[in-house]
């Protein structure tokens, strides 16, 4: 089967429970918003292919499966991720303070050059706001990470956020390729599939029949 994309990026959503990670994911992947998503149950990852400067970029966006609730994200979740959306809720001070902990968690577990972006979600709920936009910006400057306030409900800046993160990853990748340094470490690793193309000689017998 021909590849239908030029790049495949694995992205993660990270942040406290209830900040709207799943809503952001659904706004971006399905252009849908459903207020009844209270926690992340049954959602593994979603896929959306976007067009960036004429290249088809397939974004595979992973949700935490609720394992953030008691800070029990598996180290396996971070493997191979190229970009991470750090999400807090502008109406929840604690979720904002915890961004620093999540960054520490990422530094411990994700690849050192993973692209990051901070999202202050639920910015439509101005009346309940606890975290000002300025504080979000300040934090982002402190860590030198891009920042935007989003509303999954009103579909505000969600597209912008994913496009920005994807563009940054693509730029970094192309820069690396230009330096003629193909990512050697991971090539050769593979996933197991049901329809794995079996190598023709399937037994010792046929392999060595020349003898």
């Amino acid at each position, binding site marked *: 089967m021909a590849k239908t994309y030029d790049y495949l990026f694995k992205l993660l959503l990270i942040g406290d429970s209830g900040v709207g990670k799943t809503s952001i994911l659904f706004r971006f992947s399905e252009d849908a918003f459903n207020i009844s998503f209270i926690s992340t149950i049954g959602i593994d990852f979603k896929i959306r292919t976007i067009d960036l400067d004429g290249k088809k970029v397939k974004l595979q966006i992973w949700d935490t499966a609720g394992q953030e609730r008691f800070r029990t994200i598996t180290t396996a979740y971070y493997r191979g991720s190229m970009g991470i959306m750090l999400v807090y809720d502008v109406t929840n001070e604690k979720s904002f303070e915890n961004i620093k902990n999540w960054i520490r968690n990422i530094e*411990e577990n994700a690849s050192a050059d993973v692209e990051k972006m901070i999202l202050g979600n639920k910015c439509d709920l101005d009346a309940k706001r606890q975290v000002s936009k300025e504080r979000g910006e300040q934090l982002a400057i402190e860590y030198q990470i891009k920042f935007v306030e989003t509303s999954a409900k009103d579909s505000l800046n969600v597209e912008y956020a994913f496009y920005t993160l994807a563009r940054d990853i693509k730029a970094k990748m192309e820069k690396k390729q230009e330096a003629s340094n193909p990512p050697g470490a991971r090539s050769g690793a593979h996933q197991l599939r049901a329809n794995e193309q079996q190598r023709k000689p399937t037994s010792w017998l046929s392999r060595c029949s020349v003898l």
Partner: protein
Amino acid sequence: MDDDLPTDFQVIVVGTGMVESIVAAACSRIHKNVLHLDSSDHYGGLWASYNFDGLQKFIKEVTSDPKKQVQVYNLIEQWYIEKESPPEEEKKEGEAEDGKTEPPKKIWSQANFASEYRKFNIDMTPKLLFSRGPLVELLISSNIARYAEFRCVTRVLTWLNDRLMPVPCSRADVFATEAVSIVEKRMLMKMLTSIVGYNEEEMDNEFKDWNDKTFKEYLTHKGLTPNLIHYVLFAIAGGTEDMPCLDGVKECKKFLMSLGRYGNTPFLWPMYGSGELPQCFCRLCAVFGGVYCLNRPIDTVATKTVDEGKTVVVIESKSKTLNCDHLVIGINECPKDLVSPEPAETCDISKAVFITNGTIMKSEKEPLTLLRFPPLIEGGGAVTVLEVGPATGSCPKGLFVVYFITNKVTDAETDLKPYAEKIFDMSGGDQTVESEKPKCLWSLFYNVKDTSAAVESAVPCVHVCSGPDAGLDFDRAVHQAEQIFKKICPGEEFLPRAPDPEEIVFEDDVTHGPEFEREQEDEADGDTSKE
């Protein structure tokens, strides 16, 4: 933060080892309400992988806490390199990184290990997967394979005539081998072909007189030369002189049946180490609604009979009472009084980990090696060695991690050091010197209590999971997990295929009845995905 932990579950799983994690995933997958706890702050228990920092913490914990030494003991860590790099070496290293050229041979110091600690993934229970073994089939059929990546083991080696020898697995290997003559190759082929080819009836017929004889006797009877007997008995069957004939035949068949699926050998190694695999099952459990809480020791376990004679398990944990219909608990977390009878005394496991500055046998591409030593010490067992390099995510570039596993005779160091000295230079000293053997830079010897025997619990709704065995693969763990699952959920399918995200259709524009919300939930559980 733990305070909003719900208290009532159908299944509570304590411990995140391999068996526990598979059972948790299987229960959650068929929509049992699952809580999964671990007393420590990381996944895997004795099956975990650690980065270098985590490993240091583990060593400290074990050596300072006598209670932990029930499971892990005789722990000896040793460095063969300087604490700090000489200052000029530091400069050279910086240049190399900018200029993209590899320095001839890096001189490693303990400080380098500390600064690159994250690049290490060191396994407490390193294991391989047979390409057609039960775990590979389960990962594929359940779709849990999407959470993991694997590398093929590139070669199988053995120790023959006092040197390392490749064992011919593929045609290429056969051509490369000079140790086996053409006549011997034919003989070997005939022998192996027959083992693979036997159906059950033929097998019974062929081996009816071999029940109480050894595999070696059988191979000798078949006229194999000593070299070939060595290959088949030690390297392919992974046996010893006294391996019973039928065990040998079965092991051979398993090896041969897994050839030709993914690579040149029958084996796969999980990227970032075996400790990833329990986590993959945990992820599936969470995706289907399982609740996770680490750092959560349990204090007591009791059972209570409620109305209609139904028994519930009551667990006290951090002054919270948790209730469940079934408790699945790792043997090492399990209160003694729940285990009945005491498991029989078994032979413990001797293990060692070495970090070296090169592979044990040069090859074109980065190798991933299984080496099987025949017993070299009187009364000792065979020793399994796994060598993994940077491409597996196990260590920084320029290093290899090498695992040794055998059944305990004396203690880990006495049992394994003589083998290590055969293939490593353990004298310390100048790392730049080119030599046959790679330099050992760091080593760790330890014994693990063998808790792999199946254990019955004293209470029907408590299910005890075994610890890791000394075997090469995960087959026993998979088998046991399935047995436990069948007891908890009789008649239910064990880990049916989880839908791919693309298959989960969110019917936003479909008019739902008043039960919309509930439907939505079911849907998210992957229920309606099949259409």
